[in-house]
């Protein structure tokens, strides 16, 4: 990272033609380690207040849409706000009471463990199945590839709540298609089988939904990545007698490592906060047994009207995600240094 930024800084004055017009044509020797030709050819980067002005709208938008709610949320998490305080607009400061209450609550830890298990299972399935379909896309002929791509895009374009509703109908206890399918296939005990009988079975159905909904992103990205792998690499591998498995691990995987990294971590983030799917499926039930962290925060906050406590849950969720993500950033930085 340092390498790049220094290079950019040192190159800026060299490239300012109007100012340097009267100076000798030989550029001043580069001061930093970035002793390579400046990027951007002869065009200069604007200086002074202009860059700040240009970046201001983006910073402003980010600050109002992300930073402000985030700060508000942290403040809220330090207050004891329930239904009465909320309606009366009182904001009693509670210090870290919400946090100590949560950290001492076994229910909270159950939800944390469940969130991790849910994320792990989903991301693993999404990455494996998505990559396989991506490879399939690469191997298919033109027409079939188009058909499959369209199918994937349509699955991806499906609004989440609508797809959850469809899944709920499929798995409905009284009129569901799944029970009918099982009965027709000759299995007994599916007269009125409750697919969402336990927290685990509910989570399994949510997992099917989330995996189904996330595969297109991974598969299409994988396909895009595969098109950048040169045909000569495959050819060379074939010449060396590599089988499909070896080709994947020795050629495709190293080439697409950045792709795997970014998609995996994006999926981790998305699955970890998959509120809509889980809540719309069974409202975190039965008996709160399918709640993951965002759903837990919502149920405590909205349904139970413990707004301060819910804010504390979401802050802890952020902390947990940052810790998980820090591994990713370390990985990226390390690679950068190695280069």
């Amino acid at each position: 990272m340092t390498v790049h930024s220094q290079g950019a800084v040192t190159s800026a004055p060299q490239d300012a033609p109007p100012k340097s017009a009267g100076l000798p044509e030989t550029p001043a020797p580069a001061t930093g380690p970035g002793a390579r030709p400046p990027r951007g050819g002869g065009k200069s980067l604007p200086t002074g207040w202009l860059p700040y002005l240009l970046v201001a709208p983006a910073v402003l938008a980010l600050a109002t849409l992300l930073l402000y709610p985030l700060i508000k949320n942290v403040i809220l998490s330090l207050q004891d706000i329930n239904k009465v305080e909320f309606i009366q607009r009182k904001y009693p400061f509670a210090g870290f009471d919400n946090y100590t209450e949560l950290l001492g609550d076994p229910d909270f830890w159950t939800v944390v463990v469940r969130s991790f298990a849910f994320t792990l299972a989903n991301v693993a399935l999404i990455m494996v199945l998505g990559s396989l379909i991506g490879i399939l896309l690469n191997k298919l002929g033109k027409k079939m590839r188009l058909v499959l791509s369209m199918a994937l895009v349509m699955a991806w374009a499906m609004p989440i709540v609508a797809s959850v509703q469809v899944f709920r109908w499929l798995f409905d206890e009284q009129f569901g298609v799944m029970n009918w399918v099982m009965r027709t296939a000759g299995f007994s005990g599916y007269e009125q089988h409750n697919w969402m009988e336990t927290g685990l079975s509910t989570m399994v159905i949510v997992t099917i939904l989330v995996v189904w909904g996330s595969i297109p992103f991974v598969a299409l990205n994988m396909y895009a990545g595969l098109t950048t792998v040169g045909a000569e690499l495959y050819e060379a591998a074939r010449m060396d007698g590599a089988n499909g498995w070896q080709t994947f691990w020795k050629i495709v995987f190293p080439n697409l490592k950045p792709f795997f990294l970014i998609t995996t971590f994006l999926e981790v983030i998305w699955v970890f906060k998959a509120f809509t799917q889980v809540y719309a499926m069974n409202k975190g039930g039965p008996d709160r047994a399918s709640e993951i962290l965002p759903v837990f925060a919502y149920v405590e906050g909205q349904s139970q009207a413990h707004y301060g406590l819910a804010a504390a849950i979401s802050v802890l969720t952020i902390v947990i995600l940052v810790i998980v993500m820090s591994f990713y950033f370390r990985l990226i930085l390390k690679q950068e240094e190695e280069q």
Partner: protein
Amino acid sequence: MKRKLIAAVGVAGMMVGLAACGNGDDDKAKADAGPKEITVWVMDGSAPKAWIDEVNKEFSAKHPGVTVKVEEQKWTGIQEKVTTALSENTPPDVLELGNTQTAGYAVTGGLADLTKEKAQLGADAWQKSMLASAEVDGKLYSAPWYAANRVVIYDKKAFAKAGVTPPTTRDEWVAGLEKLKAADPATQPIYLPGQSWYVLAGLIWDEGGDLAVKDGAKWKGGLGTPQAGAAMEFYKKIQSYSTAPKDKDEANPQQSTDIVPKGGVASWIGLGWEAGGAEKALKEAGKEADFGYFPIPGKTADKTSTVFLGGSNLAVAERSKNKELAKEWLALAAGKDQMTKYAAETKGALLPNQAAANFTPAAGSFAEAMGKAGVNGKITPVTAGWANVETEPNPIKEFMTKVLKGEDAAKAGADADAEIAKRINK
């Protein structure tokens, strides 16, 4: 460079994700439509259109230029919605609140104190039993509007076919269900989902127990008691004649419009508006509804089962911009004249707030059965914390599902009581 970009995308993705986590309650500041409009929130099935149109017409005649906007709300998730609405600068001016939830809102300061307006509202004429849920610590926070209770609604044809007549005791009821089952295996003798907790409440009261009782200065749950266990045992027995899901309540799927019109249901337990909804849905499906009604039978023939006396109150929001107009609308709607019309419009299926407005129901009607059953009506504990107990996930419902699936009632009840105690004393 590519990596940096990737890292940036990662950060951006995370930030967007996190922002979505912090679910703030943004003020949905409604456009101020001028001072000459009041908004009234009524619940699904509470206000017949013909009646409320007439109330508004009369109101507008008295207050030229003032229009009344009526917004119909669903019961599901209503507490969150009302809480948010009461915290805003422009809440609905008049709102209907369930009688079990009114005390919970009264203590928040979100409802206008109507104690001084008692005379204007005609409070002297109100039924004492209905007034109880509208008051907290001697102060009036709402006007009782209507009350209703559940009865058994049955398909006359199915009962005739099986040779069953309306039962008067629990034993007769069970024997009848048994006969219905034998007569037509494809039809469920009764549709009773596992989480119909208002029905259970009546059975618990019949045993002499209660959902929660006062224990010194605090409240404690009453589901772990032998009385609740006995009530649940009977509920389980009746429920065994139904193929309804054990983990659903009567509103999801909506029994009146989603279940009964599909056929195959010989009887079910519901309210007047549900019976009406089912009739309408059957008609739309090209079928003829032929319903009979009887009170939920008690242990002996001389006393029908205790029933939960559901109902609603009308309150004025403390932050209403048109409090005076709202109070006048309230006085008009809850007054004797309009309540008389209300009772007539609902054919007595909803009991008006004063005896003088009562409607004499037709023989064999829902209202007649309801009137008989309503004599033994009771309401949930009147305390501010009760509303917290009722909100989803409702511990009473979880208790019912657990017992129906075979868990020990005393153990499941103790778990539920712990949760009730936590919520009710908040």
